[in-house]
């Protein structure tokens, strides 16, 4: 079975591929994103966030790892399903899930429905807000703000429908691939991979 499951038709299949073991937990992505999109000055407000995961190995030795997270631009997006106004919607052309501020009534149903805690309520703008895969930037030939600053070069962005794109190649070469909470049936478009180069 192909790793890339499309259950809806998109001209482009935009995705982020995160090389897990290249992330050094520097949080440059967090600041770059908050700055570019004027995300309010409060801890609860963010579009992307990196978690430090502490654990133990089989010998009882401590381990740490880093997990960058953002909206998964799910193909089966529960946030879109529950939105009463159509403010939350998925673009046919590339699969990006957006919130249209003019249509958002702030009921926060989507924040509850999202299994990934990818959304926050922006008091200043009176709308729910979240990652847009930096649509304004990518529409103008730039990388997403988090990708362009990523110090570990962990984050990669592109079109999975283009077999020649860097993200397609990475998924092909990956020694392991996972997506977050796949059992929720959301069909996320953020991939975490291990490469051996």
């Amino acid at each position, binding site marked *: 079975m192909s790793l890339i499951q499309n259950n809806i038709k998109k001209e482009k299949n935009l995705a982020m591929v995160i090389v897990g073991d290249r992330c050094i937990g*520097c949080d440059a992505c967090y600041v770059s994103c908050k700055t570019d999109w004027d995300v309010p000055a409060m801890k609860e407000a963010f579009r992307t966030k990196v978690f430090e995961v502490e654990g133990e190995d089989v010998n009882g030795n401590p381990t740490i790892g880093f997990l960058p997270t953002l909206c998964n631009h799910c193909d089966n997006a529960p946030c879109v399903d529950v939105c009463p*106004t159509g403010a939350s919607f998925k673009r046919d052309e590339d699969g990006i899930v957006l919130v249209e501020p003019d249509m958002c009534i702030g009921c926060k149903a989507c924040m509850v429905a999202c299994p990934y805690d990818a959304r926050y309520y922006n008091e200043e703008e009176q709308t729910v807000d979240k990652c847009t895969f930096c649509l304004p930037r990518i529409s103008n030939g*730039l990388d997403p703000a988090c990708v362009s600053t990523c110090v570990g*070069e962990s984050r990669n962005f592109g079109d999975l429908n283009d077999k020649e794109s860097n993200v397609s190649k990475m998924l092909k070469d990956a020694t392991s691939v996972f997506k977050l909470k796949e059992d929720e049936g959301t069909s996320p478009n953020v991939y975490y991979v291990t490469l051996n180069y």
Partner: protein
Amino acid sequence: MGRHNISRRGFLKLAGASSVAITAGITGLPSPLKASAAQEATRGARFLKYDRGVKTHNFCEMCFWNCGVDTYTRNGVIHKLEGNKLNPNNRGHLCAKGNAGIQSTYDADRIQSPLIRTGKRGEGKFKKVSWEEAYKYVYEKLNPLVDEFGPETLATFMHGTGEPYPHMLTMAIGSPNITIPAYSQCMGSREMAWALTFGTGVSGHETFDMANSKHMILFGRNMAGAVQVREAEDFAEGLARGARLTYVDPRQSESAVRATDWLQINPGTDMALALGFIHVIIRDNLANMDFVRKYCYGYNELTKHIKQYSPKWASKKCGIDAKTIEKIAWEFAKDAPNVVAIPPRRMTRYGNDTQTVRAIAILNALMGNWGVPGGIFVRNKVPLDFPKEDMPDAPDARRADGVGEGEKYPLAPTTLGRTNGIYEATLTKKPYPIKAWLLYGTNPLSHSSIGVNNLYKAIDNLELLIAIDTQFSDTVMYADVIFPESTYLERYDAPYIQKDKTPFIALRKPAIKPLYDTKGCFEICKGIAKEFELDDWFEKSPKEMQEELSQVLNKEQMETLEKDGVLLFEDVDPYPNASGAALNFSTSTSKVQLYVKDLEDMQKKHGDEFSPLPIYKDPAMPKAGEFRTLFGRTPHHSHARSQNNWVLLELQDDTPVWMNPEDAKKMGFKDGDMVSLVNAKTGHKSDHSERLKVTKRIKSGSIFIHHGFGHTTKAWTRGYEKGTKENWFISDGVDPLSGAAAFHNGFVKVVKA
């Protein structure tokens, strides 16, 4: 906390800048529940526009690494900083701090005009004055002190791109007491050890070729946590390409994430481990003898000396078992010469720091990794002749900090000085009274080595404290007169010329006019100098210096520099050894000095700390019931300078106390308990309590907190009193060889709050 923070948007509202486009997000009346066709049609249209704005070239000043920055302004407001893709320091990326440079500039807590103290020292009462009044004040206070005590009564501390100007001013006034804390409070012992061995320091822009390395041994050097962009990139790149990583640290830091081996060493015993590695390498004939024969001095002496330091011996000292020491030494040698052993950057630790780094330097030398990919690359100068600037003659007066020929620290460089020595001299008034300090971008109360309490006493001995800074630090609050500096986004600076793997020139141009009544450091120092009729030394402004580059660069180069913000000189060889070129070492033997003959006499005079080969000595140990205070950087903050930056504060605003589970159990503590620290020597108790983080990531017997917190300056509305200032709990030791500070022999009791 959000409401207390001033976002740029909030700032703009305050500043009344109405012309600025703010993304419209106003929902008028509640929308009907079902979207109309018209709404559906325009839904999301706003997300297709992106106004990049006007680009200006700069380089980052959030830390000393100076990454290339492209600033983007919309309607005169800086909107976004991006890494300059062509700048070798960062290749397009910025770290969290670098990205947050905007927030530091648009911070209403900044110093907004020249100020003169009105209240008691440290009380924080100042009056706004004109620049002329402030300059005059310095003259009127400093001149009588110079008359009475000599010009050497002035000591100047400097950190930042504007350093040449306070330096010039101090020399022109006639004081030799110029000090750059980056030496004695940070890299001094490392640089000294490297210079003794290789004839050159590691330098601030380190020469470890991690991207191409097959095996890196990091001795307490947290590449992923103490982030400097290129190094973090190279570190991640090397690991992604399959390099082995041996990470040596009593604490499992960010850098241990993918260590092949994490050696949770006993604190202060890194030298024993390095000597153990060297022993195995020599015993098992694993040294790169081609390199040793051609380029090294003192291999026989080393061979004899190292016999005593077997892996079994090392294991007893450092707590890493002998088998592991052998295994790693073998693996390391197997991949030579594309391997590198990396000493700490801030090597102000146990007082044996120079000799510890000497052992690490020898380990590298035996691999023959100098000038080889994956080892230590060779820095090249920008191959141009820049016109020499006129400088005042070096003052004759004796330095106050024991640096100089015939003094206690004859090897320490007079161009950098011992900041800790200046503190000591100010406190003790020996060898002569220091009555005035000029601080440029430095904050002694956050990097002290004589204990914060003693530093307050030292400050009491001052008749004049002058500060030049962008912001009110703890120490700036004690100043008598304050000169507000424009931030790096608001000012020109002299051309940035970096000797490196690929040497380059970079430019800093202001993206915006100063938001407040501030000036560049050049203008400020020139203003002070004018009062002393010494302003002739301040001939060319930074902007003029940029323009004058056209005298050394050709037209095409000038155009490239203006267009890209950086000009690279790529026709150089960082790997001369690999290319078969002969190597030069500027040591007294012109060789890599495994054995430092120059130290023989000093050893006789001053003892074994000055030995030509590193001699191991046990570190000071805590008493039962006490813990050693370890501290280090967080990726989210720049030393003690960024804890009022709202976005960085969101990432980290506290300093949990790390403690090993065994220790916690003994103490009856559990994770999440609130605790206070008590300095076992001074009795000082932390002002407020911290959360206990119980974790195996810290070795039993030590606690760990992050550096840079616990600010007492009330002018910082957000960073005030967040976290603990480690300075209260560290030691005031000195490495006898380099004269640099030793902080890690400070012991504390941990008590329930």
